[in-house]
């Protein structure tokens, strides 16, 4: 079973190299899909042969043990070993990462987004009519684009690689080849390099979740950054991608340098870099505990992100292509919370207790500020991105309470967010590809124009606002419980969190009102409904959201056996 750990990480990496090497061939996308699927299968098999519950109880709270370990010496003088391990805390995150990787690769391979985008010639006919109808004064954005056909349409480029969109952007009618099946037609799909980069992000993220060695953890944590930067920098919205990618990279690097310092202090203090060993030994010695926790927490808080270290996130999300946003929300943010719970909390439990009030207050502030900001945001993707700040605030607040219920709520909320927000990004990406706008003012009447898409958007919004019976509820409601459990001033934080859930309802209903209801906006007129490819990509996320909401027990039991 241990070899599966290696397989899970290595297969996407090999797939990334192969997909890049054959990037000019039609089957490159399917190499990526196959690699991601193999990796998912390997991860899915991991629970087989795990030790029975409670067999590795070491004492203290929430102790358990690794299910499987894989060790290979790499550079022992540097405390660097290639040691992988998995347990009940990391396995669900691995599964989520592998699933999202597969869905993103399938999204590219099926050309789900590109196929749904309207053709150049059919779009060109509509805006002239609109401009004439509007009397030439209130020129709609589509009309502006039509009157300047040489100008590159931003939404077109945003959704994929640079070269295939050129003829569309110039307004040349698409030839017969463009109408062909996107599975065989390269022009209908983004470049395979994007798939390769996605797989690289997936492999590195899985290495983070798997690594049992602090130095390896740091290397993997940094390795995630590079392909993600490339995804945003190369495939993002041309208007904002350079700035956003640079901000994302610099912000994260600054955080991880502090994190690295913290890790090295911990290694120097304990004399080992074995994560599991340090956690079972009770963490670093008391004098450096707060220092280690503070350094690590700042690094992870940037990634999580915790308010006020979050400002890279809305820019990165807004600029990133759909699959980039999906991985960013579903995987990269989880690296931060995973690191916070497992590494920072595990290495420095005393420091965590001492720093808990600061974390908790920042988290609660983040929930409120993100909710209030979302109430006024005019753009869909930015709104979803900001809502992530609020949701991660719940996770950090639950972790900061330090209670058993709080830890489980944090881990559950973390995972639920990893299902719901990627679904929202997929939906918003599909919507933007169809309407070529994400501005709330330009949208409306989606319920009439594309009922299934509107229904899914409504479902995702209800899940995101924490409707009981869907995945988002358990994490957020029991964050309130955990904070109430601490009593005293924590009750105010519990109230803030509960009010934050109300704000989430307010801004998501505002979004639905502007997007789904009302008369059909010109941008939304005549758009296609959910295609079979899109339905196939989104279905696992919908099913997962419903399943986790109705049957939260098994996942919570997994967390209970985790090594924390």
């Amino acid at each position, binding site marked *: 079973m241990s070899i599966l750990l290696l397989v899970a990480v290595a297969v996407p990496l090999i797939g990334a190299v192969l997909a890049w090497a054959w990037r000019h061939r039609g089957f490159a996308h399917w190499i990526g899909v196959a690699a991601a699927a193999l990796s998912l299968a390997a991860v899915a098999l991991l629970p087989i042969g795990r030790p029975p519950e409670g067999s590795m109880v070491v004492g203290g709270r929430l102790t358990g043990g690794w299910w499987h370990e894989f060790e290979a010496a790499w550079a022992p003088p540097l405390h660097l070993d290639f040691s992988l391990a998995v347990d009940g805390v990391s396995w669900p995150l691995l599964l989520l990462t592998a699933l999202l990787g597969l869905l993103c690769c399938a999204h590219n391979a099926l050309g789900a987004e590109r196929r749904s985008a309207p053709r150049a010639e059919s779009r060109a006919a509509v805006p002239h009519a609109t401009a004439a109808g509007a009397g030439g004064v209130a020129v709609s954005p589509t009309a502006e684009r039509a009157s300047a056909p040489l100008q590159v349409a931003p939404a077109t480029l945003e959704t994929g690689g640079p070269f295939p969109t050129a003829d569309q952007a110039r307004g040349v009618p698409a030839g017969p080849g463009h109408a062909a099946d996107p599975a065989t037609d390269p022009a209908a799909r983004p470049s395979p390099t994007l798939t390769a980069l996605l797989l690289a992000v997936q492999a590195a993220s899985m290495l983070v979740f798997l690594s049992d060695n602090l130095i390896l953890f740091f290397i993997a944590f940094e390795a995630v950054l590079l392909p993600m930067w490339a995804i945003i920098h190369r495939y993002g919205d041309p208007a904002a991608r350079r700035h956003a990618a640079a901000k994302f990279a610099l912000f994260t690097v600054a955080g991880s340098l502090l994190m690295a310092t913290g890790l090295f202090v911990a290694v120097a203090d304990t004399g080992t870099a074995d994560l599991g060993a340090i956690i079972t030994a009770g963490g670093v010695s008391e004098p450096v505990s707060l220092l280690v926790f503070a350094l690590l927490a700042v690094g992870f808080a940037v990634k999580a992100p915790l308010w006020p270290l979050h400002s890279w996130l809305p820019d990165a999300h807004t600029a990133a292509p759909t699959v980039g946003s999906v991985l960013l929300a579903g995987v990269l943010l989880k690296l931060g919370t995973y690191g916070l719970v497992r590494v920072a909390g595990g290495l420095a439990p005393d420091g965590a207790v001492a720093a808990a009030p600061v974390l908790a207050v920042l988290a609660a502030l983040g929930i409120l500020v993100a909710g209030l900001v979302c109430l006024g945001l005019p753009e869909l993707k930015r709104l979803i991105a900001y809502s992530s700040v609020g949701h991660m605030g719940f996770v950090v607040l639950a972790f900061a309470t330090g209670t058993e219920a709080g830890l489980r*709520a944090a881990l559950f909320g973390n995972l639920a967010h990893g299902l719901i927000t990627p679904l929202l990004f997929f939906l918003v990406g599909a919507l933007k590809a169809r309407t070529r706008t994400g501005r709330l003012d330009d949208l409306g009447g989606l319920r009439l124009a594309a009922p299934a898409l509107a229904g899914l958007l409504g479902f995702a919004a209800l899940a995101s606002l924490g409707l*009981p019976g869907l995945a988002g509820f358990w994490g957020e409601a029991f964050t309130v419980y955990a904070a109430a459990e601490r009593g005293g001033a924590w009750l105010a934080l519990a109230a803030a969190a509960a009010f934050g859930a109300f704000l989430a309802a307010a801004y998501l209903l505002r979004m*639905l009102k502007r997007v789904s209801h009302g008369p059909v906006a010109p941008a939304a007129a005549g758009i296609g409904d959910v295609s079979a490819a899109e339905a196939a990509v989104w279905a696992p996320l919908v099913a997962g959201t419903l399943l986790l909401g109705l049957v939260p027990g098994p996942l919570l039991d997994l967390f209970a056996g985790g090594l924390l």
Partner: protein
Amino acid sequence: MTLALLLVACPALAGLAGLLVRHRNAARCLAVAAPALALCLAAACAAADPVGAFTLADFGTVRVSVAFDLSPAAAAVALAAAFVTFLVQLYSIAYLRGDPRYAPYAAQVNLFCAAMLLVVAADDLVLLLIGWEVMGACSYLLIAHYAALPKAPGAAAKAFLVTRFGDVAFVLGVMWIGTAAGTFRISEIQEPPAGAGAAMLLILFGCIGKSAQFPLQIWLPPAMAGPTPVSALIHAATMVAAGAYVLTRLLPLWPAELLLVVALVAAVTMVGAGLCALAARDVKGVLAWSTVSQVGFMFAGVAVAAGDAALFHLVSHAAFKGLLFLAAGVVIALAGTDGSLRATRLRPGDSPPAFWAMTIGLASMAGLPPLGGFYSKETVLGAAYEAGTPSGVIVFWAGVVASILTAAYAARLWLLLFRRGRGARERSAVPGLEAFSLWALIAATAGVGALYYAGPFTVPALHLDLMALLLLATLGGFAVIGDSWWRDRPRSGRRVADRDPARVLGRAQSALAEGLYAERLAARATRTAAGAAGAAARALDERLVDRTAVEGSARATVAAARGTAAGHRGGLAVYLRLSAAGTLVVAAVAIGVSLWS
């Protein structure tokens, strides 16, 4: 256990499946079969009282269980909910026969019913919370049903947000009780845990939101934008009644002195909503305000710790309010109006089912014996009369006043609908399924009083003096309206359309018809507050944090780099000067260090 689980799961699964169904006939079958099955299961539960539990989620220090406890009284509520849903579904088949969005509508009604049944049957507070909030979400979806109605989305969002605002308090209260008692099982919490007072006040606030009581009554009147059968569902047996139901479930946890708060809420709501109902300008508006007032009676029952009396009124209210809304839908369709009282009028002979449904429903609401409403209102007032507490005194007299008002607005609605002759008519026949639902609810309204003699409710016995007082109050209300009606009888020079007994309210009528402008004020206040807070948050977040701190530090770094680089550029003289200065600095440091060490 299995029975209760099935009771909830059956409409829930039918609802979820119905969301995927596109075919109309399949949607119809699912729509009717699920509540019918739920009705049978509720009857079985009433006989068996299933109790049982298994763990749903284990959070270490506390666990959430799928636990059910259907006492006979609760089973009666479940029966009422399933019965009304069943008839609403039947009625909707005819009512929405031309609607392209019928399939999702029927599925959402079933989900709504499942959520209510979950609230009724749950023995675990978090499980109850699930049903509680799913109900809110379903109400949002259903009120927003009409895509062409411009005010529907706003009304739907308002209904969801106002109840969700109450739920902020409700969730906090539930979690507080959970932490204090160490369990969420209602049956395991024997006595009020520490801090129960504050927690129960929070829960009360949530129930006020759900039940549209003062001061959160603002969402209910605009919710009329939904289809009429949805109003029947929301008002009769589900959402609005759920708040009162949950209060009766948690009655053992109330510290006695805090019941006074419930009494005040109930008293203000009963009388205030009664006045608004008397002034309301359209048929559904009268019924909406009457619901608020009647749920106030249920809260009054809770305030005097008479849970069963409140539940009895809940069940009898479910029958007559369901009847009234469904009849209103028929009447409005027959009259071919938008439901405003100025235009809507029929002759009794136009449609006997509609006429009799309205008449029996209004008579029951006004409390005429031997209809259900008479018995249930009598038991609530009887419990208040016997209570002998300050809360009892408050709700008793408020109840008497509210009874007068109830009789008055019932009589006004009846007179305006049926005693003004013939209006414009669009269609004459009532579809068979609609008529069936009406007759079934007429029978239920007439017969529900029998529960007093042989029912699951332990309620105070009827007092002769109270019965006389209640009848006197009802007749008084009739007399006031009848008097005004008689004075305004058509004589030369008067137009019939202006005849409205609500003029007894004088100048207050227009304010009351608008619900004392509470809705508008609340909307404006919320919008202003949200706008200000949102702007402040954006200023803090985008200006201060992002632009000043983050991007500012980046700009500062770049500027420093440019400055440093510029300092290193220049001609030979500059380089010479820099080298000399550098040598001096190095020498000074070296000497200083060697001296110091």
